[in-house]
């Protein structure tokens, strides 16, 4: 509290050498927020149209655009040291490995979970 006035007073000197803060301009914040709300409306609206098997791809694509917007601007990654971005993105590499390997495994051994109801009637008929 005591240093409040003090530090503002010499903030001009500080900006030259000591300051590392990078305040995001307000128009940018509002612009990103507007884009996010717009994309949310688009996601909700597209759910009314039958896009078949593209459905999940479209939904994930819009969600990913939103995630990129949040990451780059709200989370400041666009202006940060690139190392933080590398650390963050590296996690998704492992998520992708995890999900892809588990999914392909589940796909190959899905009988272990439950028989697919579409396959079941012939099998049941054979038993009879």
């Amino acid at each position, binding site marked *: 509290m005591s240093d409040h006035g003090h530090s503002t007073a010499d903030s001009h000197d500080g900006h030259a050498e000591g300051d590392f*803060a990078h305040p995001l301009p307000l128009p940018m914040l509002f612009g990103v927020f507007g884009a996010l709300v717009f994309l949310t409306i688009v996601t909700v609206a597209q759910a009314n149209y039958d896009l078949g098997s593209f459905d999940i791809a479209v*939904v*994930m694509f819009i*969600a990913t655009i939103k995630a990129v917007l*949040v990451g780059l601007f*709200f*989370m400041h990654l666009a202006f940060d040291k690139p190392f933080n971005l590398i650390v963050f993105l*590296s996690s998704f590499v492992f998520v992708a490995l995890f999900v892809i390997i588990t999914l392909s495994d*589940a796909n190959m051994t899905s009988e272990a979970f439950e028989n697919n109801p579409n396959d079941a009637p012939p099998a049941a008929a054979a038993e009879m």
Partner: protein
Amino acid sequence: MATIDSVTTSTDAHADDSHGHDHDHPSWLAHHFDTPEQQFDSGKLGIWLFLVTEILFFSGMFCAYAIFRMLRPEVFEGCSQFLNTKLGAINTGVLLFSSLTMAWAVRCSQTEEHKKLVALIATTLSCAMVFLGVKSIEYSHKWGMGLLPPGSYFYSAANEHPTAQQLVEIHGFSESMAYFLTNSLYFICAPFALVAVAVLVWLIVAKVSGNAFQYACAKPLLVVALSFFGGVGLGMILESGGEHHEGEHVAAAGDHSDAEHGEHSGDDHGDSGHSHSIASDHSEASADEDGATMVESPLGDDYAAVKLLAENETNTGLKDLVAAERTQQSIATGKVLTDPAASDVGISTVESEVNTPRQAGVFFGIYYCMTGVHAIHILAGIGVLVWLLIRAVRQDFNRQYFGPVDYVGLYWHLVDLIWIYLFPLLYLIR
């Protein structure tokens, strides 16, 4: 090294009197850091590493989601209808707005706008509370309808809102559990009400004792605590609006059939084992869902009256008539095998129904797991944001020391990021 000099000279006086010993660094700069920037960057890398563990943690649940959706896409499509898109969309908007205020708060801490910083953190907190309020409406609504994980799932379309007594008699819940399930909204609201009252008492005590700092902390926190109930109100309005068309169907068909339905399943299956009675109850109910309007037709307009009369124990003739009618309907729809002897062949037929307790239960198990863990993250975020609010009131942050605001902000944005994926994946499956 010019950096160190500029920092230390600008905050020298402050450091000496607040810290007490002869270090030439400001109180907010830890001993093991050379410069504020080094301190900030280390903290930032630390929070990013934490966020990475969070992503890996959530990826387990997303993976479970992906596996079950791959194996049973129709279950996800069917069960997603029970999630209110309006509430999900509103919650998405609320979280996005809280992300905006959080990013703005980080900016304010960097530009040393202390008043604005407090206001923006309080707004972020209020949004978090509104989110939880809407969420509690969603949860309590589903718990009352029995849309629960496998094992406790008891939803039946014929009787969407069973009473506590019915839960005990038909579904075998203990009385206290049944009471909780039918009144869960009050149980969820109770801790938040207690917190709101506690903050109010704190505010009054701080005002009376003239503690300006505590008063300045309690004032925004009271708004925050009360905004939970704003969220509950918002959820109630949207839920009742969205449910209207479904609600009429329940009022028309459900009211008449529920009492009869309970007796029916009790009489016929009570002796053949508890689990069996639940299973058959559900399979009949799911047949009702499709045939709700069809059931009315064979006996014409008198059918409702017949059912009312059949509720009487002594009216065995009409009871049998209604039972026969029901059996006929369920056989006609081709989804239910009523003869237990034949059901070993028909298990797969019954299970191909989306709304069986087992399959729908798996969807709701995943739903509660993902949204529940997300809600726990919101609660944790509320905790750190309150800490931040108090520090902001104390004006702890300046243009070289805004790390805590930034780190909490990053965490908050990640929670938002996860919701950005959860919302379309759970609510928007058609």
